[in-house]
């Protein structure tokens, strides 16, 4: 077995231990908060104050720098949740379920932010905030999926049953992600096609692309930090009766 596989196996098994994760994650979380937050501050200031105006949209295009990262992360968080759902169903790993519980509110907030900034952006550009096209509608479905993940857990009284139901919903819902992504290519929509595609030159001028890259990276790092922080809270909530948690509480 290769070294990488061995490392993966060991990490995978350790990740299954809430205690190990809680002990080792605080530094990572703080670092991600700081670096991610700083990058978002830099990217946003760059996008608002230094990037040039757009030939067509003028200054309103600057909403792109908060709209695109929020929308992209809303989808990425869902994919991560679906993977956690599969891990939970196959291995019955408690940490995978806790990760879903930690990430779902984050994903829901991001989806709402993407929809809201899109609405605001649409008014000066499209001439309307909302339109029922394939992109906006599939994004609204994503919001309801996140809402469903949270509501389903509260609706099922037994925690282990709730965890299984949530995992199944997480996996089934992931089919919505390619629809969001390709809606603008498969159907006629008011939303424009993607400006950045893998293997193609971006259709955003480099002078306008850099702040977006900085902000997108910042969102990634910051939100991984947020999900780690949320997972730490879920661990303490769920393991309240464990000796190590009591020791931790009393030590503070």
């Amino acid at each position, binding site marked *: 077995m290769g070294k990488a596989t061995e490392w993966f196996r060991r990490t995978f098994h350790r990740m299954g231990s809430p205690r190990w994760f809680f002990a080792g994650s605080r530094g990572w979380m703080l670092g991600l908060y700081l670096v991610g937050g700083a990058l978002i501050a830099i990217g946003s200031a760059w996008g608002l104050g230094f990037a040039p105006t757009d030939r067509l949209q003028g200054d309103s295009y600057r909403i792109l720098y908060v709209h695109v990262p929020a929308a992209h992360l809303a989808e990425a968080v869902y994919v991560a949740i679906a993977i956690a759902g599969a891990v939970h169903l196959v291995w019955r790993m408690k940490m995978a379920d806790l990760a879903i519980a930690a990430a779902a509110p984050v994903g829901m907030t991001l989806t709402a932010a993407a929809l809201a900034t899109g609405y605001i952006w649409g008014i000066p550009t499209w001439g309307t905030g909302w339109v029922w096209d*394939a992109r906006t509608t599939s994004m609204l479905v994503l919001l309801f999926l996140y809402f469903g993940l949270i509501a389903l857990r509260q609706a099922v009284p037994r925690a282990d049953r709730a965890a299984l139901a949530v995992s199944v919903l997480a996996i089934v819902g992931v089919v919505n992600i390619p629809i969001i992504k390709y809606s603008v290519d498969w159907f006629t929509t008011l939303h424009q096609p993607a400006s950045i595609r893998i293997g193609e030159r971006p259709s955003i001028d480099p002078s306008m692309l850099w702040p977006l890259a900085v902000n997108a990276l910042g969102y990634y790092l910051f939100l991984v930090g947020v999900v780690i922080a949320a997972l730490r809270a879920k661990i303490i909530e769920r393991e309240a009766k464990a000796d190590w948690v009591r020791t931790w509480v009393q030590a503070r």
Partner: protein
Amino acid sequence: MTPLRRQRAATVLFVLAGAGVTLAVAMLALEQDINLFYPPEQVVSGEAPIGKRIRAGGMVAAGSVAHDDTGLGVSFVVTDYQGSEFRVDYEGLLPGLFGEGEGVLVAGQLRADGVFEAEEVLAKHDENYMPPEVADMMAATGEQP
């Protein structure tokens, strides 16, 4: 993987495949309803229904925008640059990004004579972002974005 886990993994893949196929079939069947608007080709060919509230879209043909005497009424030609085009009559405010050579989406009724009576006009912008100077340079060299 233990046999039990392998079986669970197979179930997960099966559920995922089932959901995917169901959705793909539904989307193929509903394609016309999921599409937001009729492109010029379908408006001209008669695929777009006449006298019903529909949406149509394309590019505003260069030099086709004409305002009437009241200043509120406007007419323009929507084209796909591939031979299909139709005229739009509209009375009301135009969105800020409306312009010749730009994308447009109109909602209203298609008349039997082929003219589209719009009640609403929205601007559909493309995926290109660039500063005005870069756009001028590209226009000067005749390069397409």
